[in-house]
């Protein structure tokens, strides 16, 4: 698979604050890449650099093999970008907005645009300023799907939306962006884990990992141990065990490098005679 997005040692600093620190990542074509991380991790900045809203302080970001700083209108004609708090031309109606954008895109599909309006239940003659937050996101999404972009970049698209609208949007994205590469950022993994094929985890400007969802779910396990007596809390925890908790005879943690034999051997070594161990498949949002 070709990489449609690639960053090499991408860094961004605002005066003395380092927002991105040597970010190296690749997004394969056709994937749904979820960039997750806590607030302030640098997700939005990363996406803004990709679509040339911001310029990197160092390193490069490439889309379709072109440096993001040199992106041409032709490149933008293949990219859909939707972000929370994006300022739309509020004075336009939904229909007027789509009609205005049409000549910018050689691949604009009017039938598809009409279909999206219908699918998202958007009132065509209502001005954008009179739409609710969810409706505005839908309008922005419809305007980014009508030309079948090769790459769809979504920055916190579900932030502040109720679950019903979120589900509608996800459905719209999955239906509308068929064949497209989707790059989506979220601070809540739970929002995107159901449809992301790849996950990158960004924390304080550093990419902690970036891999396929399937290998990630194999690697991350929640482990709960019940001991016969009140557990002696060990001090020499393996570094790959995170979110460690305990209550009397119950100890719970997440192993981020799970391999059954090795993990169980470690459990046996640290806990004397565990009565029972429970291994749960987990790519849990609370952890991330």
């Amino acid at each position, binding site marked *: 698979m070709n990489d449609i997005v690639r960053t090499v040692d991408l860094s961004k600093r605002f005066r003395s604050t380092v927002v991105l620190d040597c970010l190296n990542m690749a997004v394969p074509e056709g994937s749904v890449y979820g960039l997750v991380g806590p607030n302030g991790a640098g997700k939005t900045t990363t996406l*803004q650099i990709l*679509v*040339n*809203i*911001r310029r990197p302080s160092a390193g490069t970001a490439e889309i379709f093999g072109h440096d993001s700083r040199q992106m041409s*209108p*032709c490149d*933008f*004609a293949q*990219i859909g*970008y939707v*972000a929370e*708090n*994006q*300022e*739309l*031309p509020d*004075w336009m109606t939904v229909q007027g907005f789509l009609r*205005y*954008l049409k*000549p*910018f*895109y050689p691949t604009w599909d009017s039938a598809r645009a009409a279909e999206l309006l219908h699918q998202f239940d958007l009132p065509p003659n209502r001005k954008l300023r009179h739409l609710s937050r969810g409706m505005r996101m839908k309008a*922005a999404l419809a305007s980014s799907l009508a030309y079948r972009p090769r790459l769809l*970049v979504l920055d916190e698209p579900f932030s502040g939306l109720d679950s019903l609208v979120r589900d509608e949007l996800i459905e719209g994205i999955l239906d509308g962006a068929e064949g497209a590469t989707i790059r989506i950022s979220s601070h809540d993994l739970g929002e995107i884990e159901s449809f992301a094929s790849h996950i990158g985890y960004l924390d304080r400007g550093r990419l902690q990992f970036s891999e396929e969802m399937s290998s990630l779910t194999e690697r991350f396990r929640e482990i709960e141990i019940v001991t016969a007596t009140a557990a002696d809390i060990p001090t020499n925890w393996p570094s790959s065990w995170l979110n460690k908790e305990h209550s009397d005879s119950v100890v719970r943690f997440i192993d981020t490098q799970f391999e059954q034999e090795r993990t169980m051997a470690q459990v046996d070594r640290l806990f004397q005679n565990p009565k029972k161990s429970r291994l749960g498949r987990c790519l849990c949002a609370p952890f991330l």
Partner: protein
Amino acid sequence: MRQTLHIFRKDIRHLRYEIAAALLIAAAFAFAGARRARDFSEPGANQGFAWGLLLFLLPLAWWILIARVVHDEPLPGDRQFWVTRPYAWKSLLGAKALFIAVFVHLPLLVADAVIIQAYGFSPIHQLTGLLWTQVLLAAAFVLPVAALSTLTAGLLQLVLTSLAFSIAVLLYNLSAPLLHRYAFWPELEWMRIYSALLLVVAASVPIIVWQYARRKTTSTRTIGVAATLLVLFGVPALPWTTAFAIQSRLPSKRVDLSSIQIAFDSNRKWAARALFQGKDQVRIELPLEITGIPSGTEVKPDGLTVNIEAAGVRSWRADRTPWTYFENEWNATSLDTAVDTGWYRQIRNEPVTFRGSLYLTLYGDGRTTVIPFQSRSVLVPNVGLCSAGPGPGMGNGAVFCSSGFRPRRDLISFSFIPAVQDGSRTRTGQSRLEFLSYSPFPAGLSLEPVTQFFSFNTEPGAFAGAAVQTLEPLAHIRREFEIRDIRLRDFEVRLTPIH
């Protein structure tokens, strides 16, 4: 081009009310301006409140229009939808330029043409003035407002920035005279204006282009602030002598100036004086004689610099605003400067040398045009259209002239021709217009396409007509002079109060 027109059409749709308001004000401006032409023979009657209001409203409407059209795709910030859409920056900039050309420049061009036509000028003959007005509109108004708009994200931010800018200019203007930094240069003021405009254009164009091409708001804002400081502090620092030197290098008519000399005017020795003014100052006046003036020409001094030197004493230099160091009345020119009393006391008994430069403009190619009373307007070359008549409420004769665009460069003199000419009645009511501009450009920095001026005669009698004499500036020259062995004590004047 297709994208440019597409964005242009969108802007028209969105800003239709602002466009309508601006066009309405431009139409009112044309109408009122044309009407002023009708009231032309009654100076004062046409300086109405409505005209003044229009001169305020028209730039205000343009200011709003330019800001709104630029802000329709705001450049600073990272949330605007259009930055991630396939906009070509040249198309976007082209659409905004087209909008401003159609709804700001074109209406003014039409309004100006209507107004000058109403005054009796042919718009074709005034084409250079019409077009140069457009250039000045772009340089002095459109470009800076557009540049400021590209640096701000919305109208509120623009208003606040403009207010801050206006307050800075106001504070500067209030403090500049106290600092002796700014003095009005009558004929050469145009050079300071054009220096400022050049800076404004030199900053505005890169700001606009760079903002549209790269959206580097921090860098472009720095350029904006630097240009503002340069205009406020750099332009007033331009020395008058440099301005005159530039002026003298501009193309002028070939005249042999080698014979012109400056010397002490011994025939007017009586006019020399060292006059005590209070305790601190002594005003020194020295009559100067300008000789060797080519026949058929006149000279008008524009400025003077001088060093007053005496043995063993530091010299006194007067050159900061050279045009303030001379007095000129008709053909009599005097050096006129004030020195410290302390310094004066050191040299009053010594022979001193006045060494300096006199800056002169030579006028010639005189033309006289006679305007019969109560006839139609007559075209006076280098002036405009003039008519003469009894002049209601202003004596027995009046000449009214209207000038299209260009500020006056020629020396203009008026006189009135008696109805019956005999030995006892010659031309009367001679007057001359001051406040010229040496600007070589075909229009000035004013929204009014026509300037009006008049002269009237209160002497009794009937007049057959008026004569308008013009003298064209031919060359600007600087002549050195040296006047030796003047003992200022010989010319001392101490005024005492009369009880």
